């Protein structure tokens, strides 16, 4: 039931001492006033509380259970982060108030920037982008602006076939033509193809390393040398940085632009689809292109610097998702140097542990150790009439969120792939139980395939019909009323 179904005329959850009456307010805008609002539900406070509390209860989150969604790094979101990010001394700041009033928040942002520079080996950062794709767009616009000034023939961007869909979409939005680079049989960038494609029309290559199959590209230094030698730049998609903290830094590998997903590696919650935050780091020669304003320190005071004539401009109205940045700041301060390295190490160990336990039942896409996530195949189960989707839905009955499924779209010999990213947060007992569930499901697939085909059974709804939703497009209460 929606709130509209629960609405009763005249009920209200709002308690506020108005000092003016409506007619007075309306009298100031005689030509432009809309009719009174007659379209929001009317519910009591208790009805409202129960409605959203129960909706939250039927939602699966990291706090509910294991969420091994590959490439999304669903690690635990520490509660101290939430408490400090909700501090009114932070949330009540007006972004345009004089910087002298906001020295604390600016210091926090400045120190976060310094930490990110150290973790990635980059020279400067903007904290403005709102999430990963926004960070990618920011980074690619920086490269676009740089090439416009230095080598305007370079209008193409190379992207491996293993990349997230946001990479080509962001490159395209930044005005580039996208050229796909195939992967080799080991899952890395095909060096021969790269050698062939990397010409003087290419502005940059966008890479995720470890890539989306969880493999670290051993050729990364050779790739960097080749791309740089031919006048291109390297973009690092930090979606998978959780494998590398304290081990290796994209800046040292030769990357020129980096974006980080604070809502992945740095423990800020995902919120069912954001808000996240995706700071973008650059090498010094690109710093003048960063979006304005940039937080700086001058004579012991923190300030916002907008005096950057070559800046790409603005990516949003203000300076970024401050309360998300605050959570990442707290995470980095509490983890410290050793904690961050230990987190990456545990994430890698957990992924390899799961991979080994499950390999006899779900063969890995590549038979070599992985970093923080592993891609396994369920192709063998088609002979029982069972697809990967059925296996994923059945996992829900065991109390787990399924891994990422049907991604990445390569290589051709690994269809029906699932990408499992356990993260460092999970205990051995949790991983054992999860693997037991997937092994049990593999038996069920052979003995009782109907159990899988009709799964899930224990969720609030059974499988949802996506085709019906697209054909009978109802995306609001207004649509619903109109379609009767």
């Amino acid at each position, binding site marked *: 039931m929606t709130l509209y179904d629960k609405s009763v005329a005249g009920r209200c959850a709002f308690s506020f001492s108005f000092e003016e009456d409506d007619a007075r307010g309306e009298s100031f805008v005689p030509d432009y006033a809309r009719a009174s609002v007659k379209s929001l539900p009317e519910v009591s406070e208790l009805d409202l509380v129960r409605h959203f509390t129960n909706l939250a209860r039927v939602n699966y989150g990291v706090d509910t259970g294991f969420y091994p969604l590959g490439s999304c790094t669903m690690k635990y979101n520490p509660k101290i982060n939430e408490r400090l990010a909700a501090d009114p001394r932070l949330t009540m700041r007006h972004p345009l108030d004089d910087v002298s009033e906001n020295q604390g928040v600016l210091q926090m942002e400045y120190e976060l920037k310094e930490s990110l520079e150290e973790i990635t080996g980059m020279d400067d950062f903007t904290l403005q982008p709102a999430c990963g794709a926004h960070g990618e767009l920011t980074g690619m616009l920086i490269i676009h602006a740089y090439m416009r000034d230095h080598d305007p023939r370079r209008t193409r961007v190379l992207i491996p076939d293993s990349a997230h869909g946001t990479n080509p979409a962001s490159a395209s939005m930044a005005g580039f033509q996208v050229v796909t680079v195939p992967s080799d049989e080991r899952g890395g960038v095909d060096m021969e193809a790269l050698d062939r494609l990397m010409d003087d029309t290419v502005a940059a290559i966008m890479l995720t390393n470890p890539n989306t199959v969880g493999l670290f590209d051993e050729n990364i230094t050779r790739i960097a040398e080749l791309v740089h030698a031919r006048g291109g730049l390297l973009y690092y998609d930090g979606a998978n940085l959780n494998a590398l903290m304290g081990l290796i830094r994209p800046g040292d590998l030769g990357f020129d632009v980096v974006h980080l997903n604070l809502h992945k590696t740095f423990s800020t919650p995902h919120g069912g689809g954001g808000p996240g935050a995706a700071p973008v780091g650059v090498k010094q020669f690109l710093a003048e292109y960063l979006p304005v304003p940039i937080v700086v320190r001058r004579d012991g005071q923190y300030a916002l610097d907008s005096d950057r004539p070559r800046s790409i401009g603005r990516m949003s109205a203000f300076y970024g998702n401050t309360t998300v940045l605050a959570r990442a700041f707290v995470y980095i301060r509490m983890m410290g140097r050793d904690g961050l390295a230990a987190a990456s190490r545990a994430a890698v160990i957990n992924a390899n542990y799961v991979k080994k336990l499950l390999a006899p039942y779900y063969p890995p896409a590549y038979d070599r150790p992985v970093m923080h996530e592993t891609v396994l195949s369920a192709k063998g189960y088609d002979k029982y009439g069972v697809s990967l989707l059925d296996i994923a839905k059945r996992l829900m009955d065991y109390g787990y969120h399924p891994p990422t499924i049907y991604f990445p779209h390569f290589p051709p010999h690994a269809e029906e792939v699932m990408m499992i990213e356990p993260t460092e947060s999970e205990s051995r007992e949790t991983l054992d139980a999860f693997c037991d569930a997937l092994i049990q499901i593999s038996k069920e697939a052979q003995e009782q395939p109907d159990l899988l085909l009709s799964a899930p059974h224990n969720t609030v709804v059974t499988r949802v*019909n996506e085709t019906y939703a697209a054909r009978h497009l109802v*995306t*609001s209460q*207004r649509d619903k009323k109109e379609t009767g």
Partner: protein
Amino acid sequence: MLDRVGLRFEDIISCVQGNACVEGGLRLPDGLTEDEMVQEWDLLMSHNSASKKASLMGGGAYMHFVPAVVPHLAGQPGFVTAYTPYQPELSQGTLQSLFEYQSFIVELTDMELSNCSMYDGASSTAEAMLMAHRIKHAPRILAADNVNPAYLATVRTYIEPHGIAIETVATDESGQVSQADLERLLSAAPCSAVLVQSPNYFGIIEDLSALGNLVHAHDALFVECFTEAMALGLLKYGLGTGADVVVGDAQSLGLPMSFGGPHLGVFATLRKFNREFPGRIVGESVDTEGRQAYVMTLRAREQDIRREKATSNICSNHALNAITAAVYLASVGQAGFRSLACENAAKLQKLVRGLEGTGRFSRVFKSGAVFNEMALASSLTPDELRARLAAVPVIPPLLLPSGMVPVIAGMPYSYLVCATELLKDALLEQVIAALS
């Protein structure tokens, strides 16, 4: 653990050998315990000035009253710690809440289709310009020069690599978009979109219906941007004024200002553009038992399927803030939302009359209708203003750059002055007294 599976950590990470590794650990401080962290945080936050009870500063971020149920409900771990709802059977909470958000936005903007959020008003506006270009193909857009400058800057950043030119439409002496200038620019060459903000950056409400008629006579899309979501309770937007797209920032719907983010981008449009709009959208469907269920729909536009041909690169959006806005709107209800909008409009009038009464302030635009914000000229310098207000718990108004609005004789400084429902009469009187 690795013993059980016959691996050694050194072997696993041997793949990084031959590349430049970190020697001797990162140069970061040691970690802190939770109590140490709280102490460090307190010290940091003590460097901010004290929090205020109301804000005379708007300009894109607004201080409003937030009922206690709003952060309580939106902060439920089931909402907070979930990912994007790719698996609908485990995500009905997020999905239904977003459906309700979309329903509320469709009603308040008077449009046919709302996505389930963008990042903020500025990026949402920029995406509207790109959508218009996809639909109309003319490499030129027009924008009122009285649109929030940060929004205009964001639009410029987004359109620059696509070779789309932007020209600005002048503001007339009443503070509204000059219809003559708009007509002139529309006649000069084809354009994909016209962007108008109402109330505009100076607080003046635009005659959207009249502008919409002009725009449609020239086959461009009319993009209406609201400045402050509270205005949706009192002012007309959308179908009734000829909009093709309504965008804006809905931070005012239950979200704190948070130093500028995370806010909430609204994007609402017409059903006929349902293959063209950016961002995610939730649709109603059924499960195998025929029960009502929700799922993300119209997915074929999106980056994970279309890659470089997607309508936008947007992936994560501001879903939790959309849920917050839904809780807020349900909490204040339709009568409360109307009353809040009216309270805002009336409070501004009371404040402006009081300020004019001091003899130190004067309206920059004398005749235009306003909502909860307007440009005032003043004889007070920014430092004088700040010093006089030092003992009053309000954030001072925003100084406008010189040359942005016409100069009033004897009053060389211009401020954008905002009032909301938080400016209680007692506080308002303190403000006037301090400036008298």
